[in-house]
């Protein structure tokens, strides 16, 4: 992408791409950034879905909604261009998982067996990574529906940055053909050899039974037996999602803030996305503090003005406020200095042809549509390019 400015690079993304995946650590404004991208794309005439998996309901907050379930909500935009629509959806992991099983199961009996299995309940609700897996599942689903020109995916905050990319694979492994076959073999063999388990797998299996308890293994075996029917469907979809991530119509956007933990995560994503040949487009660097870099003396610069404005206030008000302003400015400067190395690190990562859009800390935290529009105005300062 050869855009003149970073902002133009970002504008090109929301104009041309079909999927934008926002990744990054927690607390860097990922959700609000995703919402602002969606908002702007819709205003510029695209049909957009912002998909979030946020347990803290931040997107709902930012979009001025109380909350929304798994269903898609349309958000009214009075100033959207012709054809532009903004939709939002908050993912319900359990419902998405149930839905998937429902569709992939060949018959009612399999469905009942799976829904009634205790392992399934724990795995679908609680499994490390099932949120991430279901987010990609849902993404694939809405992508295939063809109802949207652009889907912006807000990924969950992750413990280890890898989880988002790895988790779908990890869960897919859980229903891996081989592991399922291996686990079912002793049970199939039971019928042939009576209660005698044979081979290494038999020995190991007995030990696992001893450690985890026979009941657990029985339940697990029941789970696998029922799941066997769905396996091909699962694997096909997992492969399709993986292809979709690598597609040039997709873009990854790393969202970060100028502090050590978030920049570490950003740099980790930068490396991982490159190593996996996934289409990294650029960085959004949020919450950057700015100030005049130099000594300022409030008593010198503001004494007369403050005195004139403070005639009706107690005598010490002006000098005391001016002293506070000095302190505040010093403090702000030191914060700006502290952030400098992290801003530099992000810019260094971007030298390889990615853009960095940096966003100064907004005066107010984003808690409604107005805040979202402020952010969107910072991200997209230029009017949309005229249609060719």
């Amino acid at each position, binding site marked *: 992408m050869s855009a003149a400015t970073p902002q133009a690079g970002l504008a090109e993304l929301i104009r041309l791409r079909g999927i934008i995946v926002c990744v990054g650590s927690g*607390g860097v404004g990922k959700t609000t950034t995703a919402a602002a991208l969606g908002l702007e794309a819709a205003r510029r005439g695209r049909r957009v879905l912002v998909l979030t998996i946020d347990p803290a309901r931040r997107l709902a907050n930012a979009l001025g909604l109380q909350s929304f379930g798994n269903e898609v909500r349309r958000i009214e935009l009075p100033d959207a261009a012709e054809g532009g629509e903004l939709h939002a959806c908050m993912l319900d992991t359990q419902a998405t998982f149930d839905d998937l099983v429902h569709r992939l199961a060949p018959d009612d009996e399999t469905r009942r067996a799976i829904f009634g299995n205790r392992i399934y309940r724990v795995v679908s609700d609680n499994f490390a990574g099932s949120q991430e897996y279901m987010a990609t599942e849902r993404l694939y689903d809405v992508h295939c529906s063809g109802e949207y020109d652009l889907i912006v995916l807000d990924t*969950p905050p992750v413990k280890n940055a890898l989880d988002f990319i790895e988790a779908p694979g990890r869960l897919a492994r859980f229903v891996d053909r081989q592991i399922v076959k291996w686990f079912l073999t002793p049970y199939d063999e039971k019928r042939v050899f009576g209660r005698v388990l044979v081979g290494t797998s038999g020995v190991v299996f007995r030990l696992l039974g001893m450690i985890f308890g026979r009941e657990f293994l029985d339940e697990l075996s029941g789970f696998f037996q029922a799941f066997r029917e769905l396996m091909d469907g699962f694997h096909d979809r997992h492969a399709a999602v993986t292809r979709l991530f690598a597609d040039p119509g997709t873009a990854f956007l790393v969202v970060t803030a100028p502090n050590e933990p978030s920049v*570490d995560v950003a740099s980790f994503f930068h490396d991982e996305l490159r190593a996996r040949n996934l289409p990294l487009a650029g960085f959004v660097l949020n919450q950057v503090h700015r100030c005049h870099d130099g000594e300022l003396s409030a008593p010198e610069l503001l004494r007369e003005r403050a005195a004139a404005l403070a005639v009706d206030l107690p005598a010490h008000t002006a000098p005391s406020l001016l002293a506070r302003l000095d302190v505040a400015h010093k403090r*702000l400067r030191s914060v700006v200095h502290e952030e400098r190395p992290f801003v530099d690190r992000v810019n260094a990562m971007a030298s390889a042809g990615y853009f960095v859009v940096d966003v100064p800390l907004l005066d107010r935290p984003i808690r409604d549509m107005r805040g979202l529009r402020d952010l969107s105005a910072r991200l997209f300062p230029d009017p949309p390019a005229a249609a060719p």
Partner: protein
Amino acid sequence: MSSCLGRLLSSRLLFVTGKGGTGKTTLALAFARAAAGQGRRVCLAEVDNQRPSLTEYYDFQPGFQPVAVSPRLAITNITWFEALEEWLGRFVPVQRVVRLILGNRMVRLFLDVTPGSREVVTFARLMQLLEAYDLVVVDLPASGHAISFFRVFSGAASLFPAGPVRRTMDEALLRIARDDTQLVLCALPEEMVVNETIETWQKLRAVIPELAMPLVVLNQGMQPVLTPHEHSLLERLAQDLGHGSHQAQQGPELELVRAGHWEAEREQATGLAEQRLQDETDMELLVAPLMGATGGAGTRVRRMEALLLRSWARSSIRQGGL
């Protein structure tokens, strides 16, 4: 305020969690150092962190075996595979068999994906560390994961009616229910962070009511210093200089007013966060002042440690004086 600090510093198992970026690791390390300073033998544990955050404070990466960083403080990273190996070794005394089990690719996949197996072996390791140390401070992963961590011991137990997994889970529950096991939450004066902190507190209480959560630390808070008169003068100055309008004159005067606004905004956010955390949870609140300023990670930890000790001293004087 913070009469619970004495109890926290004399607890045996102390979990620290919070939303990412709130300063969990700083707080955990500050607690560990403060307790070590009181003469206790302390181990600070990270849980299977692939990118250990303690490396920011010590220039090496802690491994499974605790390493002493000062006479009474050791640090460790509870890597799950080593924890599993150790745990299996207790039930399968023959090393060769443990290796046979763990050497099997299918078993590794199975253990990797089986709900609860990570948490169970991690907790087993924590209990083992408790035999060698007076206090184990656990720097838990960010709040969402902390909830899943504890849910294993209350929710998944029904899957394992018997066997060593079940026994370890039962032992863990007993340990969690003791009043010398406690959890501290870490928050920032930002609306979203406060939301998540309150939600985490609610969920943990529902998931594991046995766990004591006496304290939330509001990091990077700013105590109000501007009087109402100073506030109104600041607003007048801002208006006079055209702040917020498009015709605002750029210049050093406006820079000063902007800095004042920035600080006032943080003061206000701190007040709001304090109020919500006090109204919506029953945790005691400790506000840690803005740590920005000079110095790196080490300075932050020392300042946090000093704050904990100071607040503890203040609360014990108050209690003694009653």
